[in-house]
C-alpha cells in the first residue's frame, strides 16, 4: 500500500536487543516532548507515539509512505542517540498496518513482556499515549488504535487467566493464603527463623493486609530486629511452640538440621485453634516441618519445592492462556482493520470517478447516435467538453475528500460520498 493512511512501527525489545543497546536507545520522559515534535514536524509523518520502557523502545507512526517512514524512524532513533545506523540494523524490527496493530495489541496485553501477563506494561503504554496526546503528536488513527489497544488489554485480562497466577514464590504463597483465608487483614503470621526469603514472603503478606506479626529466632536479637522492621513482636525461640496456635500463617526458615515442627505438635496447636485452618510455609532447606503434618485436617503445608511447582505450573498456565489471548487479539485486529480501511480515500475516489465516467460515456453515446451530421472533429470536441466538465465538477470534492480523511471525522465524509454516489449498491 503506497497511498492512504499507513501505520508503521519501528522498535527494539528485550527479545531482539541486549540491555546494553536498549539502554542507549531509551527516550527519557523529559526529552520526549522535543522528540515527538521533531517527528511530527517531518512532512512524512502525520502522527506518532513513542513508547520507551526498560524492555522496549518503539515508535508508532502514521506516515505518507511505508518504506520511507520506516527508514526515517530508524534514522531518527539513531541520530537522536548519536549511534551509527550500521551497528543497529540487526536489532530493529519494523511492522506495518495489520502487523503493527497486532504487535501493539500484544504488547499492551502483556503477551510480549518478559514476564507474561505482568500488569505494568499497560500502564506504560497508557502513559506513552497520554504524553503524546498532550503534545498533540497523535491524531485520529493513533488515538483510535491506542484506545482500542487498552480495551483489548482489558478484555484479555478479564477473559483469560493470563495475569491470574502468581509467578514468584512469594506471590504464589500470598495467593494460597488468600485462597485459604480470603481477607488477610484479620490474620496473623509467625516467622520461625529470620531467613531472607521468609522476610520477603512476610513483607508480601503484610502488603496484602496481615497486621499481626510474630518473629521467633534462636538468637533473640535477630528476632527483635526483624520484628521491629515488620512492626511485629519478637518471641523467645522456645516459646514459639506454645504460641504457635495464635498464628494463621507460619513461615519457617531456620537452619535446624532436623524437623522442628512435628505432627503431634501441630495436632495440639490445631486443637487449641478449634480447627481453624493454618497455613504452613516451610522455606527452610533442610525442611523445618515434618511432611506428615499436611495429613492433618485444616492444616496446609507447602515446602519450597511445592511452591516452586506451583510457580512453574502457573508459568505454563500463563503460556496456555496466551494462546487464548491471541484468539481475542486476532479478532480485534480484524475489527480495527475494517475501520482502518474505511479511512482510505483512494478507492472511493476511483469508484466515484468511474461512476461519473460511465454516466458520461452513456449519455454522450446516446446523444451522438442521433447526430450523424456532425463531423468527427465535432464529435471529438463534445467528448472533450464532457470530460472536462466531469473533471471540473469532481475536482473539488476529490481534493476535499483527501484532505478530510486525514482529519478526526474523515470516515463520515467517506460514508457520505459513498452514500450520495450510490457506490455501495
Amino acid at each position, binding site marked *: 500500500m503506497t497511498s492512504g493512511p499507513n501505520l508503521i512501527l519501528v522498535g527494539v525489545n528485550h527479545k531482539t536487543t541486549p540491555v546494553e543497546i536498549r539502554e542507549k536507545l531509551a527516550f527519557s520522559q523529559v526529552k520526549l516532548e522535543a522528540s515527538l515534535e521533531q517527528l511530527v514536524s517531518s512532512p512524512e509523518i502525520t502522527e506518532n507515539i513513542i513508547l520507551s520502557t526498560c524492555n522496549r523502545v518503539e515508535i508508532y507512526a502514521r506516515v505518507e509512505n511505508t518504506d520511507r517512514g520506516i527508514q526515517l524512524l530508524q534514522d531518527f532513533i539513531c541520530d537522536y542517540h548519536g549511534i551509527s545506523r550500521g551497528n543497529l540494523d540487526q536489532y530493529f524490527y519494523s511492522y506495518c498496518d495489520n502487523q503493527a496493530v497486532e504487535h501493539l495489541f500484544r504488547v499492551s496485553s502483556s503477551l510480549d513482556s518478559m514476564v507474561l501477563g505482568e500488569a505494568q506494561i499497560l500502564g506504560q503504554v497508557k502513559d506513552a499515549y497520554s504524553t503524546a496526546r498532550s503534545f498533540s503528536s497523535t491524531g485520529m488513527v493513533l488515538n483510535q488504535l491506542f484506545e482500542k489497544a487498552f480495551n483489548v488489554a482489558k478484555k484479555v485480562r478479564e*477473559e483469560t487467566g493470563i495475569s491470574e497466577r502468581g509467578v514468584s514464590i512469594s506471590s504464589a504463597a500470598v495467593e494460597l493464603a488468600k485462597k485459604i*483465608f480470603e481477607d488477610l487483614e484479620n490474620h496473623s503470621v509467625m516467622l520461625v527463623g529470620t531467613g531472607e526469603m521468609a522476610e520477603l514472603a512476610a513483607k508480601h503478606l503484610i502488603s496484602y493486609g496481615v497486621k499481626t506479626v510474630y518473629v521467633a529466632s534462636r538468637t533473640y536479637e535477630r528476632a527483635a530486629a526483624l520484628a521491629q522492621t515488620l512492626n511485629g513482636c519478637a518471641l523467645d525461640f522456645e516459646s514459639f511452640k506454645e504460641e504457635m496456635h495464635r498464628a494463621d500463617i507460619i513461615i519457617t526458615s531456620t537452619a535446624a538440621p532436623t524437623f522442628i515442627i512435628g505432627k503431634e505438635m501441630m495436632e495440639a496447636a490445631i486443637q487449641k485453634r478449634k480447627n481453624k485452618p493454618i497455613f504452613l510455609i516451610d522455606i527452610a532447606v533442610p525442611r523445618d516441618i515434618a511432611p506428615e503434618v499436611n495429613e492433618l485436617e485444616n492444616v496446609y503445608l507447602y515446602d519450597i519445592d511445592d511452591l516452586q511447582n506451583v510457580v512453574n505450573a502457573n508459568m505454563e498456565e500463563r503460556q496456555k492462556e496466551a494462546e487464548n489471548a491471541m484468539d481475542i487479539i486476532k479478532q480485534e485486529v480484524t475489527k480495527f482493520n475494517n475501520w482502518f480501511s474505511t479511512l482510505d480515500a483512494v478507492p472511493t475516489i476511483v469508484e466515484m470517478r468511474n461512476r461519473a465516467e460511465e454516466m458520461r460515456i452513456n449519455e454522450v453515446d446516446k446523444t451522438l447516435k442521433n447526430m450523424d451530421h456532425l463531423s468527427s472533429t465535432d464529435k471529438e470536441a463534445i467528448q472533450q467538453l464532457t470530460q472536462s466538465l466531469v473533471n471540473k465538477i469532481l475536482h473539488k470534492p476529490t481534493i476535499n475528500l483527501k484532505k478530510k480523511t486525514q482529519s478526526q471525522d474523515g470516515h463520515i465524509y467517506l460514508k457520505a460520498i459513498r452514500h450520495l454516489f450510490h457506490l455501495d449498491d
Partner: protein
Amino acid sequence: MDKISFNIALFSYLLASLGYFVYLVYRRPLVSTLAGGLVALGLFAQTISIGVRSSMTGHGPYTTSYEVAMFLAWFMVVIYLLTEWKYKIKDLGAFVIPLVFLVMLVSVFLSKDAGLVPESEVRFWLTMHRTLSLIGYAAFSIAFAAGIMYLIQEHQVKTKKLGIMYFRMPSLEVLDDLNFKVITIGFPLFTLGFMTGSIWNTKMDQAFFSWDLAKTMPMVMVWLIYGLVFFGRMATGLRGKKAAQGAILGFVAVIGSFFLHI
C-alpha cells in the same frame, strides 16, 4: 397461564444452569450476567405460575407433591439470589441453579391435581409446616452447593494440584462461612417446620408423633445430621471439610426424605 409460565421458568433455569457452567469454565462476564438475568426471569415466571395456580385452587402451594416441589424450587432461587447478592459468589449458580432445574423437572412428572384442604386451623398448621420446612430445605441446598465447592477447593489446596477451579472458586474461609451461615438459618427453621408438622398431624387426629417409620425416620436423620453440624461447630469447632461433608450428606438425606414424605 400457570403452565406457560411454569415452562418459561423451567427453560430459563436450564439455560441459566448452562450459562453458569460456561462461566465457570470459560470466564465470560457477559455469560454470567445473562445467566443472572435468566434466573430473575425464571423466578418472575415461576412466581406468576404459583400465583395463578393458587388463585385457582384457593390455597397456597403446599398440598400436593407437585406444589411442594414447585415451592421448594422457588425458595431455593430466592435464597440463592439473596446469597449471591450478599456474597457475590457467581460460581455458586453453577451448583445451585441446576438443582433448582432438577427439582422443577421432577415436579413435571408429579400429579398436577389440586389437593383438598379443609378451611380450618388445620390449614394454618399445614401452611406453617410446609413454609418453614421448605425455607429450611432451600437454605440446606445452598449449604450443599457451598459444601461441594469447599471440597473441590480443599482438595486442590491440600494435594497441591491447583487446577483452574482453584482460581475460579472463592476461598475456603468464605465457603466455610457461607456453609455455617445458611445452616444457622436453615436448621432452626427446619426444626420449627418439624414441630409444626407434628402439630398438624395431631390436628388431623393422628398421634403427635405418628411413628410412621418410613416417613419419620428420614426426617429424624436429616435433623440429626444438621444438628451435629450446627451444634458441633459451636461446641467443638467442627468446621471445614467435616462441615462441608455434613452439609452434603444432610442434603442427600433431605432429598430422600422429601420423596418419602410427600
